[in-house]
């Protein structure tokens, strides 16, 4: 099964992204805790891209693809043509430092890395593809 959703880079569209992910996985017998974590990871990746690569410009578009193969390895892709925002190159600040500095950011990437089994980037048709993989046993 393949699902696709195209959305503009407005933070008000995050709710729609969460609903799309949840609806796409609803027949896959994903336990609720895992389902919520996957929805969260996609929200985090999309909001990061919207903010850092597209400056919340609603005319810029993101494409979300969900590929559900038979063997429990879920593949989520976010396709865009903004500047590349590679979370693997992002230095995660120490939690204690974030608290000390009263910073509100820096947690989303931690969540994504903790939830997903793999995060990789590739180019396809001159666009950036962020591919997130999650295996559900």
């Amino acid at each position, binding site marked *: 099964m393949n699902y696709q959703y195209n959305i503009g880079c407005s*933070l008000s569209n*995050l*709710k729609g992204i*969460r609903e799309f992910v949840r609806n796409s996985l609803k027949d896959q017998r994903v336990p609720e805790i895992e389902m919520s*974590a996957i929805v969260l990871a996609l929200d985090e990746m999309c909001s990061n891209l919207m903010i850092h690569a597209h400056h919340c410009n609603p005319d810029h578009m993101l494409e979300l693809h969900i590929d559900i193969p038979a063997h429990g390895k879920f593949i989520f892709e976010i396709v865009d043509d903004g500047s590349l925002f590679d979370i693997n190159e992002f230095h995660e600040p120490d939690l204690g430092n974030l608290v*000390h500095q009263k910073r509100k950011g820096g947690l*989303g990437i*931690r969540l994504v890395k903790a939830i997903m089994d793999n995060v990789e980037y590739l180019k396809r048709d001159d666009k950036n593809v962020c591919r997130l993989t999650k295996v559900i046993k």
Partner: protein
Amino acid sequence: MVHIKRLQEDGADIISVIGEIDASSSIELDLAIAKSVGEGFKKILVDCSALEYISSAGLGVFMSYIEELKDKNIPMVLFGMKEKVLNTFSILGLAELLHIAATKPEAKKLANELSV
């Protein structure tokens, strides 16, 4: 979309968070806590029983107040969290940095103990 209500009980400010907190709505949680602190409350309880979802933007708001509240000796206790929401805090280890109770009476008790 989030809806935030504040009411006071036994000298504590109770902030009820209803709905979903993401990058578009976390500012409302931030404003509510800032108001509570600004109005001089010495105990803040956050009712999360109707909180359906929180992303890192909301977690970041709670985290950004840890130092300030510690300096001002104002305990903030979150309570009534659904398992899926609590899991988000736990993934990051934030459940250990914040005060979290299961029920309102337990939250009040914990806030009283912390404010001694």
